[in-house]
């Protein structure tokens, strides 16, 4: 098992290197904001120097020009691969440079955005997993029953409903109308950000946090549960018709034990793999949800950087999300091995 994990980690290194090369080359091929920003008056000198480093062959020459006189630079660009190497070697050391636009350290923006997205993902995934497994098992064990039809219908609604629409409806219903209905002047569920500034103390703060998270997490959950519960249902149906389930029943086990120990344990194997892969994609995939609920997460950061043409900030963003996709792929493989002895021991 350990050699399996080590080997699997070793495989992901060239994948990430290739990803970094592609990310760098494509970002540079599609946009060349350097010229623009190198001349920018809004940039502090420090930012400009940071920018110049590694992108240009020589330290840039600054000179005074125009009337009224102002500072300007001329630079010669290095070849792309040389720039790439410079960028990569710094990125690996954790040096991501400063934003072209704001001048702030890219890593600090990334860190705070990542933290916000992570909160959404943790709560959303926890709730989704519990719901999806329960619904999937119930639907499979009572196939073609009323609850099965209801959950099947709901999951199709969930799958076909666009995120932005559900998010907006949720805000309208639970943030606006619910307050009107209850004759209160504050929103029951917030639709902006993750915290209020006024909440003090552990429990009030947590309660406030929950009221902020409820709607975005619900929006996220609806999409995920819809697909995961369908997956769990079909996986469970598959398992429950297996011969070993009949054997388990023939041993005289209770129905509950047959379903949960023998059925669910096997039905979880493919679901866990799908879950891991899906979670890996969520780190960069919550653009719409975060935008709607004004959460400064990874998605919102991406839109901002993209809008600014801020390649210096975009590159680390793309790399971080790529790392998480690869990491969760790795996790999916490892979990598969942990759950299925046939993989683990071969």
């Amino acid at each position: 098992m350990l050699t399996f994990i080590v080997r699997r980690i070793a495989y992901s290194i060239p994948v990430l290197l290739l990803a970094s090369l592609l990310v760098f080359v494509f970002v540079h091929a599609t946009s060349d904001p350097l010229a623009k920003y190198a001349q920018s008056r809004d940039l502090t000198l420090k930012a400009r120097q940071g920018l110049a480093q590694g992108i240009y062959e020589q330290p840039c020459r600054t000179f005074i020009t125009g009337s009224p006189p102002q500072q300007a630079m001329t630079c010669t660009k290095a070849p792309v691969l040389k720039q790439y190497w410079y960028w990569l070697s710094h990125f690996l050391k954790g040096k991501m440079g400063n934003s072209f636009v704001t001048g702030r350290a890219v890593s600090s923006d990334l860190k705070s955005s990542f933290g916000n997205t992570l909160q959404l993902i943790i709560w959303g995934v926890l709730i989704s997993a519990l719901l999806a497994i329960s619904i999937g098992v119930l639907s499979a064990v009572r196939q073609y029953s009323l609850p099965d039809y209801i959950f099947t219908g709901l999951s199709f609604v969930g799958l076909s409903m666009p995120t932005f629409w559900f998010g907006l409806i949720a805000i309208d219903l639970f943030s606006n109308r619910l307050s009107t209905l209850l004759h209160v002047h504050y929103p029951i569920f917030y639709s902006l950000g993750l915290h209020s500034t006024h909440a003090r103390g552990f429990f009030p703060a947590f309660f406030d946090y929950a009221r902020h998270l409820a709607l975005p997490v619900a929006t996220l959950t609806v999409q995920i549960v819809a697909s995961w519960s369908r997956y769990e249902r079909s996986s469970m149906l598959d398992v429950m018709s297996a011969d070993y389930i009949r054997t388990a029943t023939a041993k005289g086990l209770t129905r509950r034990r047959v379903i949960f120990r023998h059925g669910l344990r096997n039905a979880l194997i493919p679901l866990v793999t799908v879950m891991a892969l899906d979670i890996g994609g969520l780190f960069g995939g919550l653009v719409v949800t975060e935008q709607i609920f004004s959460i400064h997460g990874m998605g919102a950061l991406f839109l901002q950087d993209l809008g600014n043409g801020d390649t210096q900030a975009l590159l680390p963003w793309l790399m971080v999300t790529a790392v998480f996709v690869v990491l969760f792929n790795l996790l999916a493989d490892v979990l598969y091995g942990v759950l299925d002895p046939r993989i683990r021991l071969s």
Partner: protein
Amino acid sequence: MAQDLKAENPHEVGLPPLDPIRAGEPLLSVRDLRVSFKTDDGILKAVDGVSYDVYPNEVLGIVGESGSGKSVSSLAIMGLLPKSAQVTGEIVFRGQDLLHMDEKDRRKLRGGRLAMVFQDALAALNPVFTVGDQIGEAIAAHQPKMSKQAKRKLTMDLLDLVGIPNPAARVDQYPHEFSGGMRQRAMIAMSIANEPDVLIADEPTTALDVTIQAQVLEVLERIQDRTNSAIVLITHDLGVVAGVADRVLVMYAGRAVETSVVDEIFYHPRHPYTIGLMASLPRLDAAGAREERLYRIKGQPPSLIFLPSGCPFHPRCEFADMPAPCGTIRPDLELVDHTYGRHMVACHRRHDMADVDHSELHADVGAELETVEDAAAVSPAEATALEQLSTPAEEEE
């Protein structure tokens, strides 16, 4: 010609064993068991009125081709059929009527006094639990108070009993680490964990090599000697039946067509279907065996939804009296001979069949093989329904 010996009671069709004094009362009595399924084409009668008895210490072989109802009837005894199955009749096990028992009591019997060994042990064992875990679970289901150590000890004893070498190491291995024959033995160890009175073995050797088959059968016999349980051996392999069974029940289209002690079935078969089966066995002793083609029963097994009129075997029967009675009246099991134990046959021409020597039957060499279209006697809906029988839960659409 033997005189027609009517059974005193029309329902008393289960044969007494070779030694009635040793055997005593039947452990398991099946009476007029019927199992049907609703399909899109109509009602599929998988089992259509089967009766038999199983006595202590004996091996009852149930033979028949796919779709003859042999597996379905045993699943009905275990209560493992899907809910869509309509089961009627009577299954009496040690004086209790299984079909009118509540599910909780029935569950306690399953794997306890009444156990089953399944075909294809690779599929029948859960891949994610160790063999020892699964056997221990079977013990715990019926002896919940047993300590962990005692359970493990018993598990290893069971593995040892079925001839698995080095049980101490094997007990913690997963099914996929076992060979085919060892898996089947582990399966048997699991089924005998609670020393059942009746062990139903559904094609226990079908997926195995011939040498492994012999070993597994030997294990079954050894266990029977030790525990005095009765074994119902379901198979389509006549060789297995000849080697192990005391009595034989031949099934065709959901019904018993012939039953007797094993030697009678092999040496004096009376039903044209049984005769055909015997004639189609390759024989080393038959003169010119290499030159002649093997005998075969012509045609296909009948559709269980649209059964032929009269005797369901008549379209394939070489001896049928057509149109009547074979094409019009379905024959019941009748007693034909008492010499070695009761021999019963469901055939209108049972008395004429005594003169047919099955070793004289030869393949009609000139006959054309059936075309592929003929082979589609089983409708697609029926095929699906039959497939579902092998699985406890309904399949997704």
